[in-house]
């Protein structure tokens, strides 16, 4: 009976938490950027370019995190057929695509000075590119059907199938010898990075996360409104039967 469940409760909760998340996003990003740009040392070998890291790394993390979120929501949608799960997945994937693009862009910006090339065909970079295309495919598939519920289910299946790529992205640096450097924070045995860089990095990462939550909730709200609108149109257009 999920299909009859009306999402009013979700709306209420969302409205309640939204302002808090919005505020903390602003705060975290402001602090993070301050530390990142002014109050953290330049790297002894990378110089000022190291500051790209404070965008690049959180973006990359979010790219992976959001895809995992989409996959989880898709699984929920397929198993319990709860409409909110569909809405969540549909709303999240474009955000994830943006984060992925940000990681790609900042990465190649960083690559020019570090590796002397905008782009190299190494495992990490490649797998992230695949991740980006998976996001695009998900979005395209969602919109490829007249009947939104069908698009949602097809996209959900794709999201689950594509999840295999996430561990590949994460561990590509360890499995293949890549130009790209291995995990130095999210790794067994604790972070191996100077605290003065770790603090702003974590602040930015947190900020990105709350930012994601805010945008997600907003998109979900609009999605639900759009669904209401469509339903209303159908109720007007679609008679119970043609006979009058």
């Amino acid at each position, binding site marked *: 009976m999920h299909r009859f469940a009306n999402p009013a409760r979700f709306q209420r909760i969302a409205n309640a938490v939204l302002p808090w998340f919005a505020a903390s996003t602003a705060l975290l990003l402001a602090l993070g950027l301050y530390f990142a740009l002014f109050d953290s040392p330049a790297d002894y070998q990378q110089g000022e370019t190291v500051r790209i890291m404070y965008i690049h790394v959180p973006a990359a993390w979010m790219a992976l995190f959001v895809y995992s979120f989409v996959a989880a929501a898709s699984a929920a949608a*397929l198993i319990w057929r709860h409409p909110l799960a569909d809405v969540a997945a549909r709303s999240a994937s474009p955000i994830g695509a943006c984060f992925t693009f940000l990681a790609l862009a900042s990465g190649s910006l960083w690559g020019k000075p570090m590796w002397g090339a905008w782009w190299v065909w190494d495992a990490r970079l*490649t797998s992230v590119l*695949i991740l980006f*295309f*998976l996001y*695009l*495919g998900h979005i*395209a*598939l969602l919109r*490829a*059907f*007249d009947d939104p519920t*069908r698009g949602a*289910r*097809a996209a959900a*299946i*794709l999201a*689950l*199938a*594509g999840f295999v*790529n996430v561990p*590949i992205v994460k561990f590509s640096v360890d499995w293949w010898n890549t130009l790209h450097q291995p995990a130095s924070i999210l790794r067994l045995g604790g972070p191996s990075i100077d605290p003065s860089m770790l603090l702003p990095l974590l602040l930015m990462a947190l900020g990105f996360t709350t930012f994601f939550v805010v945008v997600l909730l907003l998109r979900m709200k609009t999605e639900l409104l759009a669904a209401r609108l469509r339903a209303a149109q159908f109720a007007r257009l679609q008679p119970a039967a043609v006979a009058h």
Partner: protein
Amino acid sequence: MTAFLALVRRDLQLAMRQGSDAALVLIFYLLAVLLFPFGVGPESNILARISTGVLWVTALLAALLAIERLFVSEYEDGSLDQLALLPLPLSLVVLAKVLAHWLLTGLPLTLLAPFLAIALGMDEAGYPVLVLALALGTPTLSLIGGLGAALTLGARRGGALLALLVLPLYIPALIFGVAAVDASLSGLAATPHLAILAALLLAAIPLCPWATAAALRQALE
């Protein structure tokens, strides 16, 4: 089991009857590969150098070209309803159709490859591994492509959407397939790469048909 074989036979029979796109695929493969001598020019060393990549990428694209129609005609003439209502699980039906499709496209393509390799002047040392790698890789391509075909079934846009969904998933097979051949060409052991290809296939055989069946079910709703 008899039903499974009957399905495979049916698809082969249908393909034979209506001169299927199988031949089309081979022609395209031939065309695409033989074009490169024009594109790259006579220096045989460069041709030989890129031969592996060319053979694999064109194989990928050819496989993609063929798989798109896998379920469409079944879907449009109502056969898919009937197939979904067979006593045997839908994932087996899918497996049978994919198998038939591979026999019609992937297999001939694999067998054609070494001759094209000659045309591109690849070193003989690479042929056996090339064939082996393709034999291990193309079934995976068919399985993944089948999933894509099911997902885009009844979608407003077929082919290109399918490409967007499937090509990224093809890339791992491509990477290791090429690596295997290149390894053998440079006298290294190809087995680790071949092993990974085999692993991919073993993973795909249960997973893809299952996901494909799910996709088909929702397409029929």
